[in-house]
């Protein structure tokens, strides 16, 4: 009897503990989603989060009856996990911002709804957008996402280092030889002519410039004379000419940090690098077209608004707003995007916004030469695998031909066309 009484006291204490924690928990529950909201999923850093918040605020101001719920992840990798979980759990976002290289996987899994049937509702006039951006999101004869931006790799160069070495700035038609000659002239014991993160994404434009292909039938980076020439030129910048940091130097200081600190004259980056250059670089700088080989070629970097489920009228209104001149301008103001809508990209709002780089037109000059990587559900895995081997070649651990061999062996039959 005594034991039961004492048990009851203990149980009462536990009840009190639970009762105290209950209101606390209820407060933490917060408000639940309203059915009138639409969800917008994207990945991005603080500045991107702020930029999309501005876009959302502008939309909500124009449409007070519609609320946009953000589904955000800080990095691309985290975002991929979040997105896969949401789709697999049948809780897809209404709108999702995806790079075209990541899109095919979700389209192939049946997670995305094509945009094609809704072109008029989102006011997507194909003539108002760069064709390459529309092409990048076209898979199996359907447009899967509405292109938001159209960036590409260009050469960022430190004008102070060029001046100090007495080198002329890059010209629109400069070649691989010009690039190498300039890099050699600038390279000293402390300064590198260029810095490169070796990988398929940065090698690809040089493969195309050598008339090579990333994929031929079922082979990734096949062993052709053209592909070998591109890989050899790209990697000999480090292994033979030593105008880019070696493995140890690259490990001690990443390419972008080395460039920002004035230790490198040239770097290959997309428009995404512009805001940090504006903020940090304490030297004169500009951008130039990639040096050309047998022909000109660049690589497209583009994100698009994709539909995660059958769209409601409100969802389409949001995509329409984001694609509109107002929406594109809001994002262009961040400095990190090249608008996919011609009217904005070719206006002073992008070309002459009063900030560096002076030659923003380079991104538009390059558009006619841009190519896309093949659309394949597993493309990112192939890209990662090939990049590992390219790095091995770049730092002289294996020869270019061995690198191509390894890529063949590891990729197997991938069944896609470049």
């Amino acid at each position, binding site marked *: 009897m005594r*034991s039961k009484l004492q048990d009851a006291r203990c149980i009462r204490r536990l009840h009190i503990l639970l009762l105290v924690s209950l209101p*606390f*928990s209820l407060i933490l529950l917060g408000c639940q989603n309203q059915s009138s909201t639409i969800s917008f999923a994207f990945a991005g850093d603080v500045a991107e*989060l702020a930029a999309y918040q501005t876009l959302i605020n502008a939309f909500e101001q124009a449409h007070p009856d519609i609320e946009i719920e953000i589904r955000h992840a800080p990095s691309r990798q985290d975002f991929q996990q979040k997105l896969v979980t*949401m789709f697999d759990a049948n*809780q897809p976002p209404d709108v999702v911002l995806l790079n075209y290289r990541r899109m095919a996987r979700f389209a192939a899994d049946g997670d995305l709804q094509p945009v094609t049937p809704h072109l008029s509702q989102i006011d997507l006039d194909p003539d108002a957008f760069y064709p390459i951006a529309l092409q990048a999101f076209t898979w199996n004869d359907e447009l899967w996402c509405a292109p938001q931006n159209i960036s590409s790799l260009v050469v960022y160069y430190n004008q102070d280092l060029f001046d100090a070495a007495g080198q002329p700035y890059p010209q629109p038609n400069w070649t691989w030889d010009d690039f190498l000659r300039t890099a050699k002239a600038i390279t000293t014991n402390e300064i590198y002519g260029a810095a490169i993160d070796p990988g398929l994404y940065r090698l690809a434009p040089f493969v195309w410039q050598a008339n090579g292909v990333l994929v031929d039938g079922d082979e990734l980076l096949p062993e052709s004379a053209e592909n070998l020439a591109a890989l050899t030129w790209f990697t000999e910048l480090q292994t033979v000419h030593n105008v880019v940091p070696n493995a140890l130097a690259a490990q001690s200081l990443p390419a*972008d940090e080395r460039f920002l*600190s004035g230790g490198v004259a040239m770097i290959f980056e997309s428009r995404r690098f512009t805001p940090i250059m504006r903020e*940090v670089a304490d030297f004169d700088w500009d951008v130039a077209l990639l040096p050309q080989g047998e022909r000109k070629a660049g690589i497209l970097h583009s994100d698009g608004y994709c539909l995660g489920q059958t769209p409601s009228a409100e969802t389409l209104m949001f995509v329409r707003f984001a694609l509109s001149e107002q929406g594109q301008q809001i994002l262009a103001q961040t400095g990190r995007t090249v608008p996919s809508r011609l009217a904005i990209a070719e206006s002073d709002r992008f070309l002459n916004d009063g900030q560096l780089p002076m030659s923003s037109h380079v991104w538009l000059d390059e558009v006619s030469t841009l190519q896309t990587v093949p659309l394949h559900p597993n493309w990112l895995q192939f890209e990662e695998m090939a990049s590992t081997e390219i790095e091995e070649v770049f730092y002289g651990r294996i020869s270019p031909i061995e690198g191509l061999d390894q890529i063949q062996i590891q990729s197997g039959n991938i069944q896609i066309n470049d």
Partner: protein
Amino acid sequence: MAKVSVRRALAAVVGAIFLLPLVMGGLASLSLAGQAAPQNLGALLREWSWQNYAEVFQMIPLGQHLWNSLLVVIVSVPFSVLVASLAAFFLIRSNQPWRRWLVAFAIVTMLVPPSAVWLFRFQLLSRVGLVDTRLALMLSAFAGGSSLFVLIYFWAWRQAPADLFDAADIDGASFLQAWWQVALPLVRPATAAVTLLAFMFFWGNFIEPVLFIYDPNKYTLPIGLQLLNQLDASNRPLLLAGAMIAIVPPMLLFLITQRWFLQGEWTR
């Protein structure tokens, strides 16, 4: 005596090796943000400022992230200790033949990769409307946090003489009384260890907020650090300032609890 001195000297060297990254991180957190990274230690020490610690709160809502993380651990850690210890005490006192199967099951669950249950947990939370709530981050605490915590208590009580609990039974103590008045005071080192591990588990939980939280206002500290990690290279000092702030609470807890769990035995 000489042996003790050598041992102390060795301990100091090992301690210094482990402390070095923390010191370097602390120093780098004081270097000027928004500039090219210092190329050597001399440059790092030449220009420094506490400004980063103020700026990091302006750049991202780190105060909100800190508060969210504190809420999670304030609720989750006591519940983890409570539930894990109760479950372990039940296992210890149970004479049922399936007890060993429960222990084996607890060990097996530790072998399941967390990624294998993300989808199931997301579906479950979604079904009960807890996705995008802070409660979603605390829910595992109501089941003891981790089977490891249950096993720590279980193994700690297995080292205690069973006669003690039998004596409590004979004296008329109930199950809860025996747990609270006899068993728990016996395993203070285990409680300290579970408290610290549970704190680290919930404080450093990154993937669950990524998957289960949508609203940036409900982000916890690990997400805040990941946001800082996404900043450009010139802002690395801000990331390190954020990391230093994140380290403070677990370090304080370690200092408070170390006198218990450094006794070397699970039981007092």
